[in-house]
Every structure is written in structure tokens, then in C-alpha cells.
């Protein structure tokens, strides 16, 4: 009897824990947005973070985009060639990159490259009691430390995704046209005939903004909530990657269903 009661109790505790974490997460977002005035009054704080988050991630994003474009070119040619429609290679490469791969792969890389460093930085600031020291000096750490990082991530992510798609298309061009010998004219003209600026390019940018918000927010939340011990920071960093990647994939499914569902 006591066993059943304990089981039910632990189930209730688990549900309550999830719900309260969700509520805290939402309030955290609300506080971040509420304190966002500093991003306008001291834009240099944000641009420093764009530099740290964006510029340093640029190389890995561009190189990954290049290789994803190479693979799309090779694999797409292999499949399309069976149906004698290799002219549509440009369309295939551009649509896959602008609609799905660009935003999603960039967000996954972003969670690994920038999200982890945000979590670790804030977790260590907390462990080193720097955040507490700020509060003693009447500086709100959420306003001074988290808000610029949040907006830096939200600004950097769509730029990185656009660069990823562009480099990927150029990579597909290199492999498809230069290496395999698909006709250059039909590569570009089929692409232009099939890729719509609003439906495909703009929706891809919307996706990347949403992913930027989600990944940056999760990274900051995990760092903010980390136990101030080396182990706690390590766990928080791991959770950033896991939760960030999973939420990107889940959100991508939702957004794709909403945007391209009909």
C-alpha cells in the first residue's frame, strides 16, 4: 500500500517538477524581454556578443555548409540521373538548403558551438560568485550579462543560417556543374523557377530566427539554473546540447507543418 502511494507521489512530483520548470522557463523569457531595454541603450554590449557568438561560429558553419552542398550535389545527381532529370539538381539543392537543412543544421551547430560556451560561461560566473557580486553592486546580472547574450544569439543565428545556405548552394554548384558537368544554365534557371522568395527563402529565415531564440534561451537558462559546482556546470552544458538539438528538431517539424503543410 505504501509502495503504491509512493509511486503515485513520485509521479506527481515528476509532473509538478516539469510544469514548474516550464513556468520558470517562460518567466525567464519574460524577464529577459522585459529587461531588453539595455540592448538599445548600450548596443555595444550586444555587438560584442554578436562578435563572440557569430564571427567565431562563422568558419565551422561555412565549412559545414560547403560540405553539405557537396553531398547534396553528388547524392542529388545520383538520384535524379536515374530519372533523367539532372537538370533539376539546382532546384533540389536550393530547396533543401533554404527550407530545411540551412536553418536546422546551422541551429544544431549553433547549439554545439555557441550554446555550450554560453552555458559554461554563465555557469562558471555563477560558480565563481561573479553574478552574486554583481547583485551586491546593484547591477542586475540578468540585465547586464544575459540580455546582451540573448540578443547576440538571436541576431547571429539567422545570419549564420543564410551564410550556410549560400555556401551550400555554391558547394552544390561546384560539384554539380564544375565536377559532374550538369548544364550551368539549367542549374540556375530551374532553381530560380522553383524557389519562391516568400514561401521558401523568407520562411527559412523565419525558421532560423525561431531556432536562434530557442537555442540561445535554452543555453542561457541552463547556465542560469546550473548548480554552482564543476559537475553542475558540466551537466548544464550537456543539457544545453541535448535539449537545444531536440527542441530544434521538434520545432522544425512544427514549423514545416505550419508553413508548407498545405
Amino acid at each position, binding site marked *: 500500500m505504501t509502495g503504491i502511494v509512493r509511486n503515485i507521489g513520485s509521479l506527481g512530483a515528476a509532473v509538478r517538477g516539469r510544469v514548474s520548470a516550464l513556468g520558470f522557463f517562460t518567466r525567464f523569457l519574460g524577464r529577459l524581454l522585459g529587461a531588453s531595454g539595455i540592448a538599445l541603450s548600450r548596443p555595444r554590449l550586444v555587438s560584442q556578443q554578436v*562578435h563572440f557568438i557569430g564571427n567565431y561560429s562563422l568558419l565551422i558553419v561555412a565549412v559545414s555548409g560547403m560540405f553539405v552542398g557537396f553531398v547534396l550535389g553528388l547524392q542529388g545527381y545520383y538520384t535524379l540521373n536515374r530519372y533523367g532529370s539532372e537538370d533539376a539538381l539546382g532546384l533540389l539543392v536550393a530547396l533543401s538548403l533554404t527550407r530545411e537543412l540551412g536553418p536546422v543544421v546551422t541551429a544544431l551547430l549553433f547549439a554545439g558551438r555557441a550554446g555550450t560556451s554560453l552555458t559554461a560561461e554563465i555557469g562558471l560566473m555563477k560558480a565563481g560568485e561573479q553574478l552574486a557580486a554583481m547583485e551586491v553592486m546593484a547591477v542586475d546580472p540578468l540585465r547586464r550579462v544575459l540580455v546582451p547574450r540573448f540578443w547576440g544569439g538571436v541576431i547571429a543565428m539567422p545570419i549564420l543560417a543564410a551564410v550556410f545556405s549560400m555556401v551550400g548552394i555554391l558547394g552544390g554548384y561546384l560539384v554539380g556543374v564544375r565536377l559532374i558537368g550538369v548544364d550551368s544554365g539549367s542549374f540556375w534557371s530551374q532553381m530560380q523557377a522553383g524557389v519562391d522568395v516568400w514561401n521558401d527563402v523568407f520562411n527559412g529565415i523565419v525558421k532560423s530566427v525561431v531556432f536562434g531564440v530557442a537555442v540561445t534561451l535554452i543555453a542561457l537558462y541552463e547556465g542560469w539554473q546550473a548548480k554552482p559546482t564543476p559537475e553542475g556546470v558540466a551537466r548544464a552544458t550537456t543539457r544545453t546540447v541535448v535539449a537545444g538539438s531536440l527542441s530544434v528538431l521538434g520545432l522544425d517539424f512544427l514549423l514545416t507543418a505550419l508553413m508548407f503543410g498545405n
Partner: protein
Amino acid sequence: MSREKTDFWVGLFVLLGAAAVVFLALKAGNLSSFSFGATYSLSANFDNIGGLKVRAPVKSAGVTIGRVAGISFDDKTFQAVVRLDIEQGYDFPTDSSAKILTSGLLGEQYIGIEPGGEDKNFAQGDKIRYTQSAVVLENLISQFLYGMADKQGSSQQPAQDAPGQ
């Protein structure tokens, strides 16, 4: 790193992002084919539009002169009503005809306009009277098959009658 240097690199990063978006819109997307010039609109009724889509090109002699602006269904005549935006400056006689054509064997469908011989030209809001519907592959195949069957039936008629006599 000094402030100016950071600012420079951030500026470069943002510029690169803007360049990538412009590349995606112009080189990969169809923004360059948007015409921002003035247009006038015409409408045309078709029995069947096949797979025609909004923003499909309107061509005459193979040159794109406009876009399909909208497609709707008229439940009085049971026909499809297609609104066309034609670029200002391209005038067509009022007895011109519109056809739904397909580029290549499996390509996208577009509207072709064949100029007529009237002196008066279409004005804003006019209706194209002479239209030809899209070719539906199933109808074409069934016409062909029935045609074959008819022909075979009529050619075999005397041969089948002969033994009975």
C-alpha cells in the same frame, strides 16, 4: 581586441549575412523575375486550367509579358476565372486568344497569348473571349484509345461479317 576592431568584424559579419540573403533572393530565388513596373489586368475563363498556378508566367511568342495574378471558380458558368497582370506597354488586340500551354513535356504550365487582328486593344479589366483549356493527359489518352478502338472496330466489321454470311 580593441573596440574598433570588434566593431569592424561585427559589421563585416552582418554585411556577409545581408549579402547571403540577397544572394538567396536574387540568384537562388525568383525575386529578379518580379516585375515592379505598372501592370494592367485582364481576365479569361477556361473550361479547365489543368495545373496552372498563381504567379505562373504569361507569355507571348515565348517572351514573358506578365503573370497570373489569381485563379478562382465561377459557379454560374462552372469555369475557372484566371486574372492576368500584363505589363503596361504590351498591348494586344481585343480578339487575341489565350491558351494554357506546358513548357516541355513535364514542365510548368503557363498562359500563351496569340495576338489577333482587331484595331482596338485590350484595356484594364477586359476579358479575353477566345480561350483554349489545358490539355489533360488522361483525356488525351482516352480520346486516342477510343479513336483506336473505333478505327479497329470499323475496319474489322466486314471481316467479322463475312463468315456469318
